[in-house]
């Protein structure tokens, strides 16, 4: 055993959570090693120049849920954190009209009135009610979930805190929370709105990354998760990071290194070494061994519990829970290099509508029909598309006058019936392009380059099981004190010294860094208790 291969902590996976966890541990003075299998850090949050001069956010493409605590505690602004404000949201309609919302409440009301005079005063009520629910949820979001099965006084205290917190809220707020968490977004929106395009716009994020439709129970919950983020304090607002989400993970990598963490690239961990129920290090696929008493998996629960360690070392209940844990990757990405900005006929030469998300979700029915295909093992014929052209806000993303367009695509289930993604990849690209063409005539003529990323590609490249972008579905039975499994939601594992910090732990996926931050607190707490 050489001393150079010995560390205090080893993190498996250099995605954003791995980097955040490594940065916190290094900041606390631990000799920390972060191992990343690819040639760059970032995991699913990377930016690549796939066509000369065009920077593609291959997978993840925007920021919102990144916790303000992470930004502050890791001093990310010092290392280049630069989220760019997105002023607009644009929803094209099937009849050629559109809904264009921006930062000005009164202008938005006028715009909504074009579609429904009745909905003009509904938006304030809706946003206020959802805001109250978010307020109730935040304290749950930013702390370790209580172990409701635990028997220690500390566990009892945590549970008492939770009950006290929920009990202190107004009944209406608790009721709204339960309606959102357990119900469908469609039902919830119907209480406020009648405009189809407005409901489509508001419902679109309720299915992101999860195999539910807007009429499914559970879509309200996803919608709530997506609204938990912020940009500069505006709840539910999103931003582009300078240089894409890869720009963001580069900042994280720089910060982690500045705190003293060591990052090794192209270091593919084969498995965690254990001895007498205690983690002692890792072995790379090339046979290199690194040793540490703390090993942290930033990978998803399937990898953490069934690939990196021998499941015979784990309790049967846990293995079974992980077997049942739903991945159900259901999202794809299609990224375009464009020769010029697309035109929306109703807006002539205007391009100011492209300064934020362009959402192809003209109605709840459109979304639900897109979902139908996924239920039966196929991809949507007319998919829901969450698109954005980051180059409108960050000219460094594309050459002058040209643009990159990132399209998040749903639904594209990992498991196809009667075919496979290697066969269907190009067809999916065509389907997406055809759908965009339908709303933006002439779009196809602008395409210089196209990259299609299927759930299979996400799994192959990034390692996320079944291409699930959250490292496990946002379904109620696998959230909070059930994420990823009952009794194991507090970042520890049955193997001593072996921890989990990825998106498969509370509070979950998206680029938020919260799981890694909370995991680092547990790790440091345990270490202090041992010392």
């Amino acid at each position: 055993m050489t001393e150079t291969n010995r560390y205090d902590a080893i993190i498996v996976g250099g995605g954003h959570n791995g980097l955040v966890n490594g940065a916190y541990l290094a900041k606390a003075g631990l000799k920390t090693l972060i191992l990343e299998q690819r040639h760059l850090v970032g995991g699913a949050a990377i930016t690549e120049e796939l066509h000369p001069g065009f920077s593609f956010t291959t997978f993840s493409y925007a920021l919102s849920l990144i916790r303000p605590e992470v930004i502050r505690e890791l001093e990310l602004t010092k290392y280049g954190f630069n989220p760019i404000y997105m002023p607009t949201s644009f929803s094209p309609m099937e009849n050629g009209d559109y809904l264009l919302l921006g930062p000005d409440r009164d202008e938005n009301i006028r715009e909504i009135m074009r579609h429904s005079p009745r909905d003009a005063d509904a938006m304030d009520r809706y946003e206020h009610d959802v805001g109250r629910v978010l307020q109730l949820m935040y304290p749950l979001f930013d702390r370790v979930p209580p172990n409701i099965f635990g028997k220690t006084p500390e566990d009892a205290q945590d549970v008492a805190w939770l009950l006290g917190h929920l009990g202190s809220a107004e009944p209406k707020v608790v009721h709204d929370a339960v309606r959102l968490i357990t119900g469908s977004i469609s039902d919830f929106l119907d209480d406020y709105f009648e405009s189809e395009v407005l409901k489509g716009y508001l419902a679109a994020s309720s299915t992101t990354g999860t195999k539910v439709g807007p009429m499914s129970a559970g879509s309200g919950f996803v919608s709530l998760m997506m609204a938990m983020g912020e940009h500069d304090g505006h709840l539910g607002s999103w931003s582009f990071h300078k240089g894409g989400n890869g720009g963001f993970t580069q900042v994280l990598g720089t910060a982690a290194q500045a705190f003293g963490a060591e990052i090794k690239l192209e270091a593919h961990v084969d498995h965690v070494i254990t001895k007498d129920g205690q983690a002692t290090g890792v072995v790379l696929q090339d046979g290199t061994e690194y040793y540490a008493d703390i090993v942290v998996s930033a990978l998803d629960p399937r990898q953490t519990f069934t690939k990196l360690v021998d499941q015979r070392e784990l309790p049967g209940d846990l293995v079974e829970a992980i077997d049942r844990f739903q991945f159900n990757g259901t999202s794809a990405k299609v990224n375009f290099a464009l020769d010029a900005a697309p035109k929306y006929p109703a807006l002539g030469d205007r391009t100011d509508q492209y300064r934020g998300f362009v959402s192809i979700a003209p109605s709840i029915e459109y979304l639900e029909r897109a979902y139908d295909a996924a239920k039966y093992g196929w991809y949507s014929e007319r998919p829901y598309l969450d698109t954005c052209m980051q180059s409108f806000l960050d000219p460094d993303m594309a050459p002058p006058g040209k643009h990159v367009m990132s399209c998040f695509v749903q639904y594209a289930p990992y498991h196809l019936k009667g075919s496979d993604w290697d066969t269907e990849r190009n067809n999916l690209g065509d389907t997406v392009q055809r759908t965009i063409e339908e709303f933006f005539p002439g779009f196809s003529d602008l395409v210089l380059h196209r990259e299609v990323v299927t759930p299979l590609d996400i799994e192959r490249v990034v390692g996320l099981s079944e291409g699930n972008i959250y490292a496990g579905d946002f379904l109620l039975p696998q959230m909070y004190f059930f994420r990823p499994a009952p009794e194991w939601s507090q970042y520890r594992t049955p193997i001593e010294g072996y921890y989990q910090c990825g998106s498969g732990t509370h509070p979950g996926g998206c680029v938020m860094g919260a799981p890694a931050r909370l995991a680092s607190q547990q790790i440091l707490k345990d270490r202090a208790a041992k010392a």
Partner: protein
Amino acid sequence: MVSTTPFHPRLAELNTTQLWTHWAGYLSATQYDIAAKHEYFGVRNAVGFFDASPLYKYEITGRDAERYLGGLLARDIRTCRPGRAQYTIWCDDGGFVLEDGVVFRHSANDFLLTAAEPNLSFLQNQIGSLEVSIEDVSAAYAMLAVQGPRSRAVIAELAPEITDLGYFGHVQAKISGSEVTISRTGFTGDLGYEIRIPADDALAVLDAVMEAGKPHQMRPFGDHALNILRIEAGLPLIGVEFSSSRYAFNEHDRFTPDELGFGWLLKGIDDDTRPFAGRPAILNERATGASRWKTVGLSVDGHAFEQLFYEAGLIPPKDEPPADWETMLYDEHGERAGYATSYTYSPMLQTQVGIARVRPDLATVGTTVHVEQTVNHVYTTVPATVTRMPFFTPERKTSMS
């Protein structure tokens, strides 16, 4: 009646909000876009342009011009070579700051001074027996600030001679057939340039700049965005950070250069060959340690700020524009610590920042002061750390490439 600048016809087309403010008697766009923050990010991530025409401009020429300015300005004008510019201040005999401005040196005896307030009679009254001529050329020129990381590429497209222009350098160039002066100056703390254009040519030059800016997504920015930018850059604004001591009613409204954080401008003050207005008083202030204040940066503890609101049952109102009033500061005992003259949310720093005057004993970087904050209609405070300024200063601001 309010005047319009030579750029106005074009700016009026661009101002989709129709929001204007009055600046020095001119219409000046508050914001062009419904989101001032979009304009702000235009400058920090790409390039934006701002109409700075309302600034007063004085041509100062003649055999004794350098001697004249040497006796007037607190910063040593002799260190400003032709082709260079200086940010500068001038003081009264009591060593209190009157105003600030930028002085451009075109040749040995040819200067141009910009100022936010009218100064012609004041400047002329200081001539005495010197051979100096001062002319108000304020209306003769339009001023266009082009600011942001892409500004060099935009201007170089029209005037390649700026490629090697150093920070606070300036050069004569031709844009659209017009003789212009381009300086590497600005009020945003970023890479940026200002173009001084004969008024009659203003629109033609603006059109050329806009055309060159198109591939870089250049957009106009107004007063709101500028204010956030300049606070992040730690740049003082007359009328906000201080007012001319000439109009102070008492000692609370006049400040010395050291109190305003302008000490760095006084390099060489010990050199007796340059007696300038206020020098003896400033030397005395330094000798006796009589400064009442120090100017520092403030950075609010973001976590404490959020908790303050969450615990009060509110959602933290983070993204607030610059406050129009002074914000009071307290020390750990609740005693008066000073006050922030500018206070805003900084999108780059992701927290509230302020330009503040504090008691000298609290001016050490890292000191905690408590910033007045209203929550649920009750005054409370939030902790902030004393920091250096500028808050945001990218390498590109001064770098040569």
